[in-house]
């Protein structure tokens, strides 16, 4: 933690107050990503606490998914540092699980539900490790946790959107990670699936694991999450939901795109100052 802060400070940018190292699951310092000539994410600092559920919220094109992918090294970053539980990303891959956007893959792919979940065992099984026995039982348990035990032998294209999202979550569970990064886990899923996913994530949190999710539904931020990063290419606000998710910060992140009445629905109590 300390050396990265020093480097960030040398850039002459304001540095966010650092949380104590033991409490930070994911720390971003000066993270910048560009597609072509314009910055998709510009110099973002964020500290996602351990053992909590954090949301990344912002308007379309704010760079939410890009931020998540850059934090994982899935897309290259122009500059900035990523620290996971106090260590560099490269040495923390075994401790991270990633759930990409459901629409980012081809669900016609010739593979079964159980084969997808087995992909979550790659870090421990490697290229040649056996996937039978105890590992096969773990795959079955993960499918059971998301309510998909009966679908293990289905081809993935035969599932509904919500079922596909559960399979992706089961794959992440198989990784038995400490930090779960999810990209729009509730996008296009049915209400039952949303409840099931929230339950699984809450159970993970109660086990002391950390969750960071890109989230699009402002109405449920307060119900689901402890911590929030409001993003619009740059960092707009960050902190506990109670203090960082307010009418002012939403206005700053979304500009004129949210009507006053809409904000009233999102923040029924307290939040409006």
């Amino acid at each position, binding site marked *: 933690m300390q050396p990265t802060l020093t480097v960030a400070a040398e850039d002459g940018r304001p540095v966010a107050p650092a949380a104590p190292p033991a409490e930070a699951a994911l720390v971003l310092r000066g993270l910048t990503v560009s*597609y*072509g000539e314009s910055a998709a994410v510009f110099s973002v600092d964020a500290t996602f606490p351990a053992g909590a559920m954090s949301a990344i919220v912002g308007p379309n094109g704010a760079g939410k998914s890009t931020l998540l*992918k850059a934090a*994982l*090294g*899935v897309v290259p970053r122009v500059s900035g540092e990523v620290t996971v539980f106090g260590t560099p990303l*490269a040495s923390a*891959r075994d401790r*991270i699980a*990633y759930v*990409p956007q*459901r*629409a*980012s*893959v*081809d*669900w*016609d*792919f*010739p*593979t*079964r539900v159980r*084969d*997808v979940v087995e*992909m979550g065992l*790659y*870090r421990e*099984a*490697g*290229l040649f490790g056996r996937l039978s026995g105890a590992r096969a039982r773990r795959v079955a348990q993960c499918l059971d946790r998301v309510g998909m035990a009966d679908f293990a032998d289905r*081809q993935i*294209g*035969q*599932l*509904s*959107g919500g079922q*596909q999202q559960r399979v992706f979550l089961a*794959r992440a569970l198989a990784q038995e990670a400490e930090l779960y*990064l999810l990209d729009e886990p509730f996008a296009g899923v049915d209400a039952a699936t949303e409840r099931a996913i929230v339950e699984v994530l809450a159970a993970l949190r109660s086990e002391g694991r950390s969750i960071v999710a890109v989230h699009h539904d402002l109405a449920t931020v307060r119900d689901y999450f402890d911590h929030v990063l409001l993003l619009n290419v740059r960092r707009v606000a960050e902190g506990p939901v109670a203090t960082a998710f307010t009418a002012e910060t939403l206005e700053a992140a979304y500009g004129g795109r949210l009507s006053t009445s809409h904000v009233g629905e999102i923040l029924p109590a307290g939040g409006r100052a």
Partner: protein
Amino acid sequence: MGAEFVQISLTPILIGIFAAVACALPGNFLILRRQALIGDAISHVVLPGIVVAFLVTGTVAALPMLIGAAGAALLAVVLIEAVRRLGRIEPGAAMGVVFTTLFAAGVLLLERTDTASVHLDVQHALMGNLESLVWLEATGWRSLMDPAALAALPEELGRIAVVCAAMIVLTAVFWRWLTITTFDEAFARALGIPAAAVGLGLVIAAAVAAVAAFEAVGSIIVIAMFICPPAAARLMTERLDRQVLWSVAFAALSAVLGYVLAGYGPLWLGARHAVSAAGMIATVSGVILALACLYGPHRARVGAGRDAG
């Protein structure tokens, strides 16, 4: 199935099988990655490679031609990947830009240098010369144990056998990398799998298979075998491991059936001459694909598009 079969038919059939399987194996993954046109691209790109190899060496011997073709194929593969990644466009468009440019460069080279006087046989490039790859030194099945006769096997057989074996080994060894990166590249990168290297390695392997097969059996088979057996196999199963096995079976079946039909089919129909074996092999693979489209058990979902359900 006696001495004459071993002399005349055994080696062409084996070469046909090896070439078909070598192309079909990477074809499975190329189709799922929507890069199936790479076979088409490589077979066009081979032309400038051959012309340059001739300009440099002054001969039309097999080895320099092969090296030139392989070099051009690798150059094309690197250019396609570069255009795709730097331009952020879909693979088909990158291939279209690169292979037409390189093919045009090949034609230009051919016309602007004195190579135009060299006999470049279009028929040979398209159809190969499978029927001529015979084993005249063989006297029967026992020749398979005879070192002297084995030494006289067509060189093409050894080369395509090695390439085919390499494709099988590579597919088996890198199976998990290939499946995970093909299905979900972002997830693969998050796992620390070198997804870009896997993608590049796949197209390079495909290029090697294409050039080796091109030499023995011509470009028609190369283009057909990258696409037809894997596409037909996709319609037979919902599991990738089984799809790959089906594609190998279809590729081998196309090679055997195509060779036999080309040799004997016209005679059965009352004609006097055999037709091109390579052309018939490609035709058979197309017929198998058509049958799979009509009767394959899992044909309904293909083409339903992304984000279905």
